[in-house]
């Protein structure tokens, strides 16, 4: 039971990560692979703050999300000003470079990670409380993105993604809408990071490597890019996948690369066979045109 509950915590975290990444890549058409680093920024902010001072946890999580937002602007402002493609290139450097910085700073614990993050839940069953918080936050992020996409701002996002030049010629500021959705997406990743740090009480740079990006991307692609339920379904399915292949009884040294291989294969297979993902057909508000 304890195990199921811990998977639920992760599920909430990954629903936040995949839904926010979907906002960036699926709705916004902006390709970035730096989502794990914003996840890390949220986690490390909470870790560093709570290890060094007594801070109200929700405030630390909010600060983590805020820092992710600020860093997202540092990445998107210069690169999006030129063209959307530069975001991808810059994001690779940003992800690799910033993680290297984290690995070499003493206050972040360096390569060995940051431990001793205090337990902030001293009531009830710890995991159950975290599972509830995690799922509640995931629901909040889901509802927020749904509100954003279905409302007047959603029209701006769709139109900008469809044709940026025409969008601008109509008097709409494309740069602004790109900065906003990238910022919101990254802030959500920071939020997930805060939750992650408080739950595991330990953060390590290895957890935020570039490969995390392929996992989040797989969740989005398998579930359905640009559909609201897609990333949720993708996150749930992919979190169960390690369990599903667990019966093979391979040693961990084989399991980890096998998982990576499966994620990459899934993305390729889905892009060829069902590019709209699993959920697009069931999702009325999918914003991708049917081809």
């Amino acid at each position: 039971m304890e195990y199921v509950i811990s998977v639920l915590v992760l599920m909430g975290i990954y629903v936040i990560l995949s839904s926010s990444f979907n906002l960036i890549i699926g709705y916004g058409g902006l390709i970035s692979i730096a989502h794990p680093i914003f996840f890390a920024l949220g986690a490390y902010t909470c870790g560093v703050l709570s290890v060094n001072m007594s801070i109200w946890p929700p405030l630390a999580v909010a600060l983590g999300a805020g820092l992710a937002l600020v860093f997202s602007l540092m990445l998107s402002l210069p690169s999006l000003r030129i063209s959307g493609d530069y975001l991808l290139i810059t994001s690779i450097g940003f992800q690799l470079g910033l993680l290297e910085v984290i690995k070499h700073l003493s206050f972040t614990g360096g390569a060995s990670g940051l431990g001793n993050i205090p337990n902030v839940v001293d009531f009830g069953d710890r995991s159950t409380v975290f599972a509830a918080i995690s799922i509640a936050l995931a629901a909040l992020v889901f509802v927020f993105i749904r509100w954003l996409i279905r409302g007047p701002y959603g029209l701006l996002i769709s139109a900008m993604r469809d044709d940026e030049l025409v969008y601008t010629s109509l008097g709409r500021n494309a740069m602004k809408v790109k900065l906003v959705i990238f910022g919101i997406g990254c802030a959500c990743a920071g939020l997930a990071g805060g939750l992650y740090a408080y739950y595991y009480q330990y953060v390590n740079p290895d957890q935020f490597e570039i490969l995390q990006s392929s996992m989040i991307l797989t969740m989005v692609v398998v579930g359905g890019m640009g559909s609201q339920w897609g990333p949720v379904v993708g996150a749930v399915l992919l979190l169960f996948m390690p369990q599903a292949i667990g019966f093979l009884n391979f040693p961990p040294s084989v399991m980890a690369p096998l998982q990576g291989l499966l994620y990459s294969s899934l993305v390729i297979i889905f892009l060829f066979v069902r590019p709209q993902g699993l959920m697009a057909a069931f999702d009325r508000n999918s914003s991708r045109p049917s081809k």
Partner: protein
Amino acid sequence: MIPILKIEKVCKRFGGIVVADAIDLEIHAGEILGLIGPNGAGKSSLFNLISGIYPIDSGEITLMGQSLHGLSMVKRAQSGISRTWQHMRLFPSMTVLNNLVVASRYYEAENLRALFFQSGKVKGLQAEKENDAMEILVRMGLASLSNSPIADLTFGQQKLIGLARALMNDGPCLLLDEPMAGVEGQSYETIKDIVRQEANRGRAICVVEHNISFVKDLCNSAVFMFNGKLLERGSVDDLLASKTLEALYFGGQKTIPVS
């Protein structure tokens, strides 16, 4: 009377290619000006210069007496320059109605403070935009398609939606880039009526068009462009009567004769 759009000695070159060579042009309120000339004459490029896609090398463009110098494309559209595109370029993932709504001259939801903290007001304004869009669709006879995806529309209907989207900007200047290319039958008549109505409402309209009978039916006057130069302005009939222009248009002559 101040012209709505005034172009003075505008020059633009891309490397060795001159797309605008000291162009002077004025369009007044209520006027429909035809812009004719062979392919590559610089007609669409002139639209791109007016709407701000490319900066001009020299000269000046003014809208109702105000210089557009240094104004971005966004600001020019908000100042009231609206345009269509030769290849429609509608937003394929959106419905017909939403294609129009997003094209309003001002869009309050772009302002995040208003979006988050004045959502009631934004909602009301959004409903107004939907009403405006529906009104335009009714005028075009396409109200029943308001919730259709763009892919479901015929070519002619898509041309009409391209025009409808431009009309959502209620500014004084309308630039139409080949509104009739590939259009026939009912859509042809509708586009003609709508353009005439918009001129009667006081807009200054400039039409790039190869369909000469459309230009003849609709435009008060026309200008002939060739190799980035504005060769002549006059009534459509006068321009068509010119043997030189006819030869330039239909390819008999490759260079402008020295007078």
